[in-house]
C-alpha cells in the first residue's frame, strides 16, 4: 500500500503501476458524469459524434453535486454508486478513459475492460461530500446543461483523497475472500 500523488491526464504506464490499496491524492482536471450523461456519451459515440471532452488519458468522477452557495466553487460533491454506470463504462474505457472515481462494486465486464486497456477504479468516501468539495478548486458545466446536477462538469481538483479499489490487474479491495 503506497501513497501516490497523481495528476491528470495520465499515461497507461502510470495507471499500470497503481495497485489496489494504494492511497492516491489526485490532482488536475476530472470530468463529472452520472447515469444520464453516460447514456448520452455512449449514444454520441454510437452516432460517430465527437464527445464534449477528450476521454483519452482522463478521469471521470461519478458525482451529482449540490448547488454552490454564493461565493463557493461548488456544493457538497461526494461519489455516487458506480454500478449504475457499468453498462456504459467499458465503451469509454475502450476510448482511452483511464480513471473512474466512485463508490461501490463494478461488474466483471468493467473489470475486464480495465485489465485489457489499462484503467483503474478509485474509491472516494461515500458521504464525505463536504470534505471532498474542499478539494475542488474550479467547476464549470461543459455539456448537457439540461441535466441539472447530472450535467457534465469540468472540475479542477487538488489532492482529492481516494483509494485504488480495483487496479488494472483486476485486484479488487471489495473482494477479499
Amino acid at each position, binding site marked *: 500500500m503506497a501513497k501516490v500523488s497523481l495528476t491528470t491526464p495520465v499515461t497507461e504506464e502510470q495507471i499500470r503501476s497503481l495497485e489496489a490499496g494504494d492511497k492516491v491524492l489526485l490532482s488536475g482536471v476530472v470530468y463529472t458524469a452520472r447515469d*444520464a450523461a453516460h447514456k448520452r456519451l455512449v449514444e454520441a459515440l454510437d452516432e460517430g459524434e465527437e464527445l464534449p471532452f477528450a476521454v483519452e488519458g482522463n478521469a471521470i468522477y461519478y458525482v451529482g453535486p449540490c448547488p454552490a452557495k454564493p461565493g463557493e466553487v461548488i456544493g*457538497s460533491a461526494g461519489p455516487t*454508486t458506480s454500478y449504475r454506470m457499468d453498462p456504459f463504462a467499458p465503451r469509454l474505457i475502450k476510448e482511452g478513459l483511464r480513471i473512474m472515481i466512485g463508490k461501490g*462494486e463494478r461488474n466483471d465486464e468493467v473489470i475486464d475492460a480495465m485489465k485489457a486497456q489499462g484503467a483503474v477504479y478509485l474509491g472516494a468516501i461515500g458521504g464525505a*461530500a*463536504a470534505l471532498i468539495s474542499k478539494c475542488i478548486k474550479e467547476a464549470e458545466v461543459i455539456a448537457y446543461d439540461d441535466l441539472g446536477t447530472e450535467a457534465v462538469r469540468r472540475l479542477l481538483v487538488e489532492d482529492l483523497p481516494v483509494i485504488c479499489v480495483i487496479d488494472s490487474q483486476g485486484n479488487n479491495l471489495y473482494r477479499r475472500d
Partner: protein
Amino acid sequence: MRTIKAEEISRAVAKLCIDANYNLGEDIVNEYKLAYQRENSDVAKEILQQLSKNAEIAKEDQVPICQDTGMAVIFLELGQDLRVVEGDLYQAINQGVSAGYTEGYLRKSVVNDPLIQRKNTEDNTPAVIHTEIVPGDQLKITVAPKGFGSENMSQLKMLRPTDGVEGLKTFVLKVVKEAGPNPCPPIVVGIGIGGTVEKAALLAKKSLLRPLGVYNDDEKFKNLEQELLEEVNRLDIGPQGLGGLTTALAVNIETYPTHIAGLPVVVNINCHVARHKEVVL
C-alpha cells in the same frame, strides 16, 4: 378547536429540510468516534475519521453533509383536535420542501415520472408523506431526507411463517451482504416485520427514525436487534466496504401483527448519513 396556519407548517418543513441536511445528529457523530476506537484496521479508522471531519465541516460551514440530499420523506403525527387553516396541508408541506431545498442550496434529486420521462422537478417535490392521526391538538413533523445509494439496496421478502427467527436472520444478512459497499457503510439497518407488504415497508422506514441507542420496547426484539447487529458486523464489510468491524451502526426492528399465512419482511437500508429532524407545532 386549535388551529394552525398552513404557512407556519411550510416554514417549519423548510427549516427541517435544511437542518437535517447540514447538521448530523449527535448520536451518529458520537458513534463514529466509538467505532473509530473499536476498529483495528488503518483504512477503517481513517474512513471513520474522515466521516467525523466531514460532519464537522458540514456543521461549521452550514453545507450539506452529503451531496445526495435525498428525497424528502415526511412523517406527520396530526392531532385530531387540530385544524389546518389558510391552506392545504400537503400543499403546505411541499411548499416547505421546495423552499428548503432551494434556499438551503440542497440538491434537487426528484424526477416527475419514474419510468418514461424522468424529468427533474427542479425543487425536490413532491415529498413522500406519511400521516398518522393521533389524539391531541398538536402536529409533529419529522423530516427524513433519504439518499438512494442506500434506498436502492433495500429488499422485501414474504417469508413462510415457519421460517421463523432463523429465516429472518438469513434474509437480513443476505440483504446486507448483497448491498456490500454500495450503501455507504457503516449503515443503519431498518427492519419491518409483519402486517402486509406496504405495512412492513413503512415499519422498516419508520424504524430508521430511531436515535442510536434506543431499542425495541419488547425485550425479545431488542435482543434480536442486538444479535443481528453483532452478526452483521461480523460480515467484515466495514466502513465503505473496505473491511472492518463497523458494517452497521444499528439494527432497528419494528413489528405489527400479521396474517396466519404470512411473515412479510422489509429491510430498508440507511447510510451513515442517517438524517432525521423533528418539530412539534
